[in-house]
């Protein structure tokens, strides 16, 4: 039987049981959709981590709060690193400067216009100290008093200004960040784009105290970047920072301190480890969900073969070869899994925006490779789980099959 005739036969048979066909593919749809979402979230998280550590120099250290997994497997966050604690690091010896910030994402609204995933950066007043004098193009940067007062003021990037406040002086206008009102006091000059995927102008700077208290919650650690005077002092400073936090967080000497100090070396290694762990997790999830989906397909195909025993008998009697019967049922199984795969990709892509808007700060980066990958995997699932029912159909005794009631 020609391929198109076999395809037509398969489609007609699936169309006769629309609900059943759909429910069967649902397993694959859900499996593929969740893998697509997880891959996108994984890429998003990786991207976020990378941008956090981007440009970490050889004489720089960063302090992060590790996520501890407790004995029962529960995730127990350590005590967060506060802005005040981070600022206190300046007084340690051998430290040239400390840069503190708190990054997140948010929706920025003005009137009826809105921008969805804007990078919101909480920073202290001295943030632009090492930038060029024209860093703020219009208006001014916020001062020490704004940080003290947790003022609702914002300095916006070029992209935000052009989108939400076109053709007017942005300074003195009001915007809403995640539903909170902010007064725009300045606009940053247009910044270059070293990475075409990231727009550095799509950001809003606000006082770091406001970000902690009002926007992102007090339980989030600020990110700290420490510049060491001399590269040779890296190890000594690492130890000094650890004991500083041991004291600040009241950690007894017999327990591990609840912060981690990273240099450029450690960051690269930790990133690779995290990526490998995540990839493994992802593969595991994909395998489990596709096996579940595949078993569903196999089950329905076995039912279908039983229901159509007489049809198989008739087809063999009029001249079908075993191969023709195998191909016919295999095409049906593959059609189920492949359409499940494609619908799953669509469902995954469509559900990403609602996920990221539900939890701001969650980043998702979709890669186009996911689509052919998901399709090929779905195809294989159909072949693997469709083969047994198809072969079983082809081995039916034709005379028994013709007499089957």
């Amino acid at each position, binding site marked *: 039987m020609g391929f198109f005739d076999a395809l037509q036969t398969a489609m007609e048979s699936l169309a006769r049981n629309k609900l059943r066909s759909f429910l069967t593919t649902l397993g694959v749809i859900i499996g593929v959709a969740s893998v697509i979402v997880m891959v996108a979230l994984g890429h998003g998280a990786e991207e976020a981590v990378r941008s956090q550590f981007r440009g970490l120099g050889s004489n720089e250290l960063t302090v992060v709060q590790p996520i501890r997994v407790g004995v029962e497997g529960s995730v127990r966050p350590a005590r967060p690193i506060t802005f005040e604690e981070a600022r206190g690091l300046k007084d340690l010896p051998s430290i040239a400067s400390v840069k503190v910030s708190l990054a997140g994402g948010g929706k920025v609204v003005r009137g009826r216009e809105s921008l969805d995933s804007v990078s919101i950066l909480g920073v202290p007043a001295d943030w632009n100290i090492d930038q060029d004098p024209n860093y703020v193009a219009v208006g001014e940067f916020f001062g020490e008093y704004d940080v003290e007062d947790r003022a609702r003021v914002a300095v916006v990037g070029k992209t935000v200004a052009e989108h939400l406040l076109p053709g007017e002086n942005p300074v003195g206008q009001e915007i809403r960040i995640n539903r909170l009102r902010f007064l725009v006091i300045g606009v940053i000059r247009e910044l270059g784009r070293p990475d075409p995927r990231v727009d550095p102008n799509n950001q809003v700077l606000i006082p770091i105290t406001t970000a902690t208290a009002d926007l992102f919650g007090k339980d989030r650690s600020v990110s700290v970047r420490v510049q060491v005077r001399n590269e040779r002092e890296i190890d000594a400073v690492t130890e000094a920072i650890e004991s500083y936090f041991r004291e600040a967080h009241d950690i007894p000497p017999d327990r591990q301190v609840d912060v981690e100090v990273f240099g450029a070396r450690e960051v690269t290694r930790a990133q690779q480890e995290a990526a490998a762990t995540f990839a493994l997790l992802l593969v595991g999830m994909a395998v489990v969900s596709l096996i579940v989906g595949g078993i569903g397909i196999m089950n329905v195909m076995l039912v279908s073969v039983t229901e159509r025993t007489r049809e198989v008998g008739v087809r063999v*009697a009029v001249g079908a*070869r075993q191969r023709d019967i195998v191909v016919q049922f295999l095409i049906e199984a593959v059609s189920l899994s492949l359409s499940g795969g494609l619908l799953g990709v669509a469902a995954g892509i469509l559900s990403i925006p609602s996920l990221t808007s539900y939890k701001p700060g969650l980043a998702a980066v979709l890669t186009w490779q996911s689509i052919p990958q998901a399709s090929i995997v779905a195809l294989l699932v159909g072949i693997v789980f469709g083969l047994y029912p198809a072969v079983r159909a082809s081995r039916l005794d034709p005379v028994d099959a013709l007499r089957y009631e």
Partner: protein
Amino acid sequence: MSGEIVEAQGLSKLYRKGRLDVPALRLATLSVQRGEFVTIMGPSGSGKSTLLYMLGCLVQPTGGVYRLEGRDVTRLRGDEVAQVRCSRIGFVFQSFHLLPGLSAQRNVELPSLYKGRTRFERRERARKLLERVGLGGRLGHRPGELSGGEAQRVAIARALMNDPVLILADEPTGNLDSVTGREIVALLRQLSEEERAVVMVTHDAEIAGHWTDRVLHMRDGVLMEG
């Protein structure tokens, strides 16, 4: 053209039932000529269906030799047997065995799907065959929308699709009333007169005696002439 279509010698079939070998057919020998219409009669379980399906290459004999048009088809491999069934043999069944989801025309086309003709050729031939069996106006009807006699005509048209030399009919009138049954047998009679052989299993002695050239009897797996 004349000559033997079916030439069978000493065909036997043993079925294993548990630890026993049960003979369904013992040393059946028969020959059917081109243009002949032969009936096999016998009580249920006498082995007549086994013989018929053996002649249709759906059952492999455990002994004996079967020649179809002079070619030994007793021990052909799977694909070769399928090839023989596809192009040399046409089946007609008691309960029609049409595929319920397909129109009459698509049902008739079915055997040609396995012979590789173009879609257009298939359609044309199926249409002509349905016209020939008097169902030119029923091309798009599903089997559920046809009467028993009409369904059996569709089945006969299907059996003719690949122009076989041997038509095997397994109680084709069993599910029909006597008038319709006679029409179907008359149609089969016509087919046998077109350079084909027709072998039919039936319970109806009147049909067998009145319409067919020769009647064979079977009892307990043994085939008897006359």
